[in-house]
Each structure stands twice: as structure tokens, then as C-alpha cells.
């Protein structure tokens, strides 16, 4: 693992000022890194700051504090023209709602070609169209779909169009912001498998934001558990699933339903309430467990959690 990470997030903070007295700390000092060609799954409950993290990284928001290093360049502050172009071409985003993320007044061909249109990455009109057709083929749609409007597609097809739009730029990193949450389960599998296939073929890294742990387990190499803007636990998928330390992670894992009714019958889901647990995320620091496994805790809490195993 002496490879350079494609994305390194260091102590990222994203605060939103509501008024003079009140500031929402949506993301409060999280750090992680993604290796090229790997998938990092970011999980957590609603409002834990997952989407905000993704949007801060791709600079839809201006981060309050911290560093985001993409391809060896800092993209969290003021960017030069080249850095901005690198960010806008090599980092792409798949959005949550397939119904809302495609312009209803544009044809599919123009939606997918938007990126190369903006950055003028084609010489002739034929070349542009051919690029779109190739990408459509890659995501399992056909050339005939290119002249249609988004409302003529189903949810799964639209999400694939959204993926095609990101792929045309040959990105090094794709941020999938709950890209499958709005789809039904059979279509989720379709889309996730498509992402895996693309990853294999193009060696793209993914930041996979989701709240469905079973899906995250399937697609991710690394997992980060986010709660109230803090990264409470991070590690490889095996480390997190086999040896969860933080009570919040444990509670999340215990909530995964099992397809086997006999197992499901005896499953006990643990509850976790931050307010009554006596844990203060502000006090904790990242503790190394093993490999790349880190937990946010104080010394005392860590001992306690380890002993309850």
C-alpha cells in the first residue's frame, strides 16, 4: 500500500451559519483517504453529514476548514484554473434522485454530452455522438435511447443515464451520493453491479454514500461510519463487520435484516442514543485498532467497549 491515495480528506469541517448565534456543524472534522480503484463506503443515519461531506469534497459548498487533496492537489481552498478543471473533469458525482438529476427539457444525448460540451473535448459532432453511444452501450442502454427525453425512462434507466453522464469524463473518482437509495431493490442490484463492472474496467475510485449497510458491504473496500458529523469508526469492510468497536457501529450492524428467516427470528437489534450514552464526540480522538481500523473514542471509552466484547 505505498500507492498515492487518489483522495485524501484531512480534518474536513463544513459549518452552516444559520444566524448570528446558531451554527449547524454538519461535518465536524473528518479524515479519510481513498486509494485508486477502490470504493470507500460512507454510512450513517439521516442528517449525519454524509451528503454534505460529498458535496464539500466536490466543492458544491465551500469547506469551512480542513484539507481535501485530490490527485496530489489541494482543492479545498481557492483553486487555480487548472486545479478547477481537474476537479470538474476528474471528479464526478452521481445524484440521489434519478427523477430530479436529469434536465427534463434535454435529450439524453445532450445530457450525457454535457461534460464534453462544457470542456470542448471533441473535434467533430460525429466524435461527440459516438462517445455518447459508446457510453450508453457501457451502461446497458442502446443508441436508440439517445434521442429521448428523461421522462420516457424508468428510474433504473435514468440512474444509468446519470452514471453515463459522469463516465464520459473518464473520472478518477466518482462520488455516488445515495445513488441507489431511490431505487427499488432489484434495480439497486442492477445499478450496483453496473458500478462494480465499471470499476473493474476503468479503475475508477468510488466514494459510495449510503445508509443501506448490506449494499455498502457488498460494494465497498473500506467503510467509514459517520454520526452527527463525526467519523466514529473507519476501516476495511472486514474489520468493521467482524470487529465493530463503537456502539453506534454495533447498533447499525445489528439492524441489518437477514434473508434467512431462522436467523432473522433471533436477531436482536441494539439501540444507541447519543444523548443518553454519555459519549462526547468532541472529547474523543482517533485510536488505532489494527491495520486501517480506527475508532473515535477516549482512552476510557475504548477500554470499556473492548471489554464488553
Amino acid at each position, binding site marked *: 500500500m505505498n500507492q498515492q491515495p487518489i483522495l485524501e480528506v484531512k480534518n474536513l469541517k463544513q459549518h452552516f451559519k444559520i444566524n448570528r448565534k446558531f451554527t449547524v456543524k454538519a461535518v465536524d472534522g473528518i479524515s479519510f483517504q481513498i486509494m485508486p480503484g477502490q470504493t470507500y463506503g460512507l454510512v450513517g443515519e439521516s442528517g449525519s453529514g454524509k451528503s454534505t461531506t460529498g458535496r464539500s469534497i466536490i466543492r458544491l459548498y465551500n469547506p469551512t476548514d480542513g484539507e481535501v487533496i485530490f490527485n496530489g492537489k489541494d482543492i479545498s481552498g481557492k483553486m487555480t484554473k487548472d486545479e478547477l478543471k481537474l476537479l470538474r473533469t476528474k471528479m464526478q458525482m452521481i*445524484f440521489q434522485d434519478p427523477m430530479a438529476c436529469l*434536465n*427534463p427539457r*434535454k435529450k439524453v444525448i445532450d445530457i450525457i454530452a454535457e461534460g464534453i460540451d462544457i470542456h470542448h473535448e471533441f473535434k467533430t459532432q460525429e466524435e461527440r455522438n459516438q462517445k455518447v453511444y459508446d457510453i450508453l452501450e457501457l451502461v446497458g*442502454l442502446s443508441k436508440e*435511447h439517445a434521442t429521448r427525453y428523461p*421522462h*420516457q425512462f424508468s428510474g433504473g434507466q435514468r440512474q444509468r443515464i446519470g452514471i453515463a453522464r459522469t463516465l464520459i469524463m473518464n473520472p478518477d473518482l466518482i462520488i455516488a451520493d445515495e445513488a441507489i437509495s431511490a431505487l427499488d431493490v432489484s434495480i439497486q*442490484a442492477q445499478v450496483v453491479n453496473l458500478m462494480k463492472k465499471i470499476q473493474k474496467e476503468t479503475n475508477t475510485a468510488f466514494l459510495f454514500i449510503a445508509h443501506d449497510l448490506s449494499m455498502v458491504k457488498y460494494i465497498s473496500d473500506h467503510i467509514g461510519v459517520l454520526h452527527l458529523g463525526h467519523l466514529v469508526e473507519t476501516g476495511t469492510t472486514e474489520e468493521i463487520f467482524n470487529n465493530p468497536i463503537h456502539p453506534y457501529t454495533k447498533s447499525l450492524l445489528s439492524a441489518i435484516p437477514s434473508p434467512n428467516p431462522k436467523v432473522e427470528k433471533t436477531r436482536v437489534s441494539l439501540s444507541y442514543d447519543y444523548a443518553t450514552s454519555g459519549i462526547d464526540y468532541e472529547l474523543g480522538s482517533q485510536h488505532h485498532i489494527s491495520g486501517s481500523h480506527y475508532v473515535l473514542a477516549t482512552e476510557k471509552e475504548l477500554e470499556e467497549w473492548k471489554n464488553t466484547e
Partner: protein
Amino acid sequence: MDNFEFLEDDFAFVGENHESKKEIAPPVTPFFKDFMRRLGKNKGACIGGILIVIIILIAIIAPMVSSYDYAEMNTAIQSTSPNAQHLFGTDRYGRDLFTRVWQGTRISLFVAASAVIIDIIFGMTYGLISGYFGGKVDTVMQRVQEIINSIPSLVILTLLLVIMKASLFTIIIALMLTGWIGMSRITRAQVLKVKEEEYVLASKTLGAGHFFIIFKNILPNIFGQLIIMSMFSIPNAIFYEAFLAFLGLGIPTPQASLGSLINDGFKSILITPYMVIIPVIVLAILMLSFNLFADGLRDAFDPTMKEM
């Protein structure tokens, strides 16, 4: 159920073998065709549209082919009732009312057209800038707009008449000063709604500039509403002009607009009612047609009606 035996691989992970097959695209009708079909189904809109075309054609052709000039006086035939020579009769100075009514319609339509152009050029641009950039720009622009809106347009026109002569140009300037506000409000509201949509965010993450986002993503999505709004502003402008003429602030004689004809005829409504009834009917048909047509357009454009 309790005794049901599960096999080892009953809950095995399907994994990547779960591939979807290629989709075949069924044929569909393009948006514009669909739009025309829906418009065609709406009887009111059809009748409105046809009447607008007929009135426009007559307004253009009638004064050209008529053997009388709209300003030509002939005191020998004062206030004659409609007859074969003078289809709509003559007024107090013996001017042919048929020519004058259609000449007046021309002026009214001209005012309407300029109202739409002002709406689109000025109101839309103002609303787009205010809504899209938001923040301080928005606050300042909205306050300025409120100040302008708080001055009654009649006062503005009266003040204008102090320094300018009463003419078509003055009326259009008066329209320009106040008429765009409704349009800019609608545009701003629509932009505020659309600019938070995910496809605009997606465009941003692809590195699109402001111009690209405004012209390729926002405008096409609000243009339907804007066209409808401007269609609705046509009858308003016609009515506003007629209202000014009726108050005596409109077009100077011998020029005529529908409003000034109604105003003149109104003075002798009991003796020669045809002088007021005919221009009123033309005005009513014109306004009704524009309203019906705009209504039909809105229904045909409305994306919630079908498959959206």
C-alpha cells in the same frame, strides 16, 4: 412453516451474475407534436387562436383596402348609422368608423406586442439575474423593484405627460416603466425553484459556467411559464391602453385606438349606440381570445398533465 427445511444455498449471494439484459427502446412521439396535439384538443384555445389570427389579418388588411382614410372628415355624413358604404357607420365628424376601428385595433395590437417584448426583454432578464445570483444582488434588486412598483402607473403617466406629448411612444414608455414587474416576479420565483434542482447541481459539478447553466438548464425549464405569462400580459396591456384612452390620456386625435373610440362613442351612447358598441365588441373578442389562447397554452405546456 416451522418444519420447513432450508437448503444450504437458499440464501446464497447472487452477486454479479444478476445481469440485466439490453433494453429495447419503444417509439415515442416528440414533445412538440404532443404539445400541438394537446393544444388542438382544447376547443377554447383553438377558437381563441383562430379569432386572434382573423382579427390581426383584418386589422392589417382593412385599413389598406378601405376607400376611406381614418382621418378623413366629411361633415356631410355626420353620425350615419351602419350602411353599405360605411359598414360600421361614421362618427361625429363623418369619419368612416370601419376604417377607424381596425386602425384602432392595429394600435391596440401594437401596444400589446410592445408590452410582450418589454416583458420578455426587461422583466425576464431582471428576474433571471435577481433569482439566479441571489444574496445581496437579489435583495437590492427586489427593493428597487418594490419602490418602482409602489408608484401607481397612472401617476407615472401623468408625470410623463407633463414633459412629453401624448403619443403612442409615451404610452409605451409608461408601460415599460411598470409593466415588467409582474413578469420579473414570476421569473424570479421560477428561477429560485429550478436553480436548486439536482440537474443544476450536476451541471455545476461538471464545471458549467453561469451562462451555460442559465441558458441550457434554467431557461428551457421555465420558458413555458414565461410564454404563458407574457400571453396573459397582452390583454392587460390592451386594456391598460384602452383605459388610458378612456381617461383622455391616450393617443391624440385624429389617431384612434379601441379605447379612444369607445371614449368618443360613449359621449353619445344614447343617440348613436353603434359608435361605442362595435369597438367594445372588438375589444372584448380580442381580450377573450387572448385569455382563452393563453389558458390553452398553459394546459398544453403543463408537464404535470402527462408522464412527468
